[in-house]
């Protein structure tokens, strides 16, 4: 009887999970395995038969391809700056917005709204602000800051992208931190106060350690999101000026679909996969270790 029940349960579980499993398999894992194959071929995405060339693509990638190395460096620079800045700002905002302000709810909504918008639209809005908007502001105020070519200067374009992506993402991380802050029980904080902990001491030695799970989540999310950055760059600069703002994903896209080197593009995306996998496991491991139990 019990055995029959168990088998039935198994069947039921399978029938619920099965359709999803098949879909995910077809949409995610099958293309993944296929791209492993394509990464070992020379294929332009058009021809009927890809030519098998073994590991030649990977060899070319690390010996002759400056674009890829440049885009990895760009993405690394971007990721570090993005992770640090976005987490600090969103944590500060969260701390400010859990206080009992009258406008707290409205402010939370205001900071969260950019996150709901699609990245491409955010990109186009900011492109308009940087070019036409700043031109009009310059005509009105004559301030030097508006005269700078924010998207046309090779160095400034990088910071423009950082500013816009932080503006877009900060609301999301803020919400995670707010949830984390609200979950800290009041009695712990009261106990700390009674024991004589001041404001900043209480924050750094009581609140921050208890926020561990939120911090892990936020760092992890911002890490994966920043390595995969694509659409906002596409909309803002399209990789320009002079190809200085290509991220790895944009470089893969260009290689596979614009340069018609599908095989090389697949090889690049596999390398990216390995990098993301290694980095995230490493980071997750470190932060998990540091978390404290509540």
């Amino acid at each position, binding site marked *: 009887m019990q055995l029959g029940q168990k088998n039935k349960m198994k069947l*039921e579980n399978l029938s619920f999970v099965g359709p999803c499993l098949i879909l995910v398999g077809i949409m995610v894992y099958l293309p993944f395995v296929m791209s492993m194959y394509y990464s070992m071929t020379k294929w332009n995405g058009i021809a009927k038969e890809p030519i098998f060339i073994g590991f030649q693509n990977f060899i070319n990638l690390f010996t002759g391809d400056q674009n890829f190395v440049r885009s990895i460096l760009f993405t690394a620079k971007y990721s570090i700056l993005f992770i640090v800045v976005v987490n600090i700002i969103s944590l500060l905002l969260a701390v400010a917005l859990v206080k009992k302000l009258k406008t707290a709810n409205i402010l939370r909504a205001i900071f969260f709204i950019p996150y709901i918008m699609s990245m491409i639209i955010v990109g186009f809005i900011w492109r308009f602000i940087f070019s036409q908007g700043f031109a009009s502001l310059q005509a009105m105020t004559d301030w030097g800051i508006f005269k700078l070519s924010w998207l*046309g*200067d090779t160095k400034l374009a990088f910071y423009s992208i950082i500013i816009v992506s932080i503006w877009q993402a900060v609301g999301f991380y803020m919400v995670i931190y707010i949830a984390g802050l609200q979950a800290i029980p009041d009695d712990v904080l009261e106990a700390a106060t009674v024991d004589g902990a001041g404001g900043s001491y209480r924050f750094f030695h009581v609140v921050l350690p208890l926020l561990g799970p939120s911090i892990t989540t936020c760092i992890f999310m911002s890490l994966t999101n920043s390595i995969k950055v694509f659409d906002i760059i596409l909309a803002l600069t399209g990789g320009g000026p002079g190809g200085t703002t290509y991220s790895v994903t944009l470089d893969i896209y260009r290689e596979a679909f614009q340069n018609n080197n599908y095989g090389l593009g697949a090889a690049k995306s596999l390398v990216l996969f390995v990098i993301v996998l290694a980095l995230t496991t490493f980071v997750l491991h470190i932060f998990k270790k540091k978390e404290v139990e509540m």
Partner: protein
Amino acid sequence: MKKRLLSLMMCLVLAGGVMSGCSPKTTGADAADTVKEAEAPKAADAEQTETAASDEPVTITIFQNMPEYTDAINAYIEEYKKVKPNVTINLEITQSDYPTMLKAKINSGEIPDVFATTAGGEIEAYAEYSYDLSNEPLAAAMTDAVKVNMSYDGKVYGFPIKSNTFGMIYNKELFEKAGITAPPKTLSELEAACEKLVAIGVKPFTTGYKEWWVQKHVFQHFFDAAQPDDVGGLVKEFIAGKAKFADYPTINDNFFKFVDLAVKYGDDKPLETDLSAEIAAFATGKAAMICGQGPWVEADILKINPSAQIGFTGYPVSENPADCVIIAGADQALRINKDSKVLKEVVELYNWLYTSDYGKKWFSEVAQVIPPIKDAPIPNLQIPTAMQEILKTEKAGDLYINYSLDSFHQKFGEIIQSYIAKAYTKEQAIKEIEAVWPQLGVAQ
């Protein structure tokens, strides 16, 4: 228990749906086979039954880019219904990412009957999918320049719905106001004209240097002047890594001189001006000359300023006025899938568009483009009319952009952007262009 059964059945239905999603491919192939079998006997006695067979209802699928001509294309489809009521045409037009979508369709085996590519390098890349049109009436109707752009290995593999022209667009009124009597034909005349325009408080240039493709449009005039008789041959030399910029002063020095001039006398933030900013600056009279554009901007300029007086001329590329020519030809092609089930009907449709009386008028009156065919009227627009005037007395340059792939042109645009941003010196830029041309110029 009943509930459980219900949910189990729902799951099965869902799973079944997933499965059936995969199945049409096989049935589709089966269907194709049966159609072929059915057609085989028909082909045998096609001679007697040709008229009867062509009355059967058929469906043609067209998948192309250039949404700006959607209305015009629908107009000829409408008109063709009157000629052949049995032909239904499914038109699918997209702009964003057309090449990617086309590749997806081809790889999934759903090749449309008619599809679009660029001319030049892609003519070769898609040759194995394209029907050879060399002996069709539409190939005979093409202008010679267009036919060259559509051919690979001596065979005509495509046909354009418009011919194109490239040159420098200028504002006639502003030129007159500044006291410039004739458009500049040499680089020193160009510099003098810029000074005159600055004197009346007008910005001489708007460059659009944010767009990488602007560079290839401008550069081709300089490249054509380097070896006017065999542009394709010289490109091949560069792709083979044999030719050097240093041997051709128009591309080695004059082009960079022009870029310097355009930046000096151009927009405040050159690498931020895109196409729309460029059009706005020109149409509102803030700038007197546009870089790297052609007839396609005329409609947008007139939308902002209906009374704009648009002039059209070649780029000054040297100190010899004879080098200053406009360029004409076709850079986009429609292709007919050679494995199409309705091949005969598709070919018939485009022979009709290229040779019938309606078709001849369609180019200039409905689509308002420069016709790709001989003896058809030119549309009543300023740039095409100017082109026709110029071509009465001068020869047009060759379409250099067709001889390399866009992968190279894009990299080229980025290198020149770096030069404008002062990240590269002229020598570094040239060195990198020479290095990437062999890698990206042709399909590997």
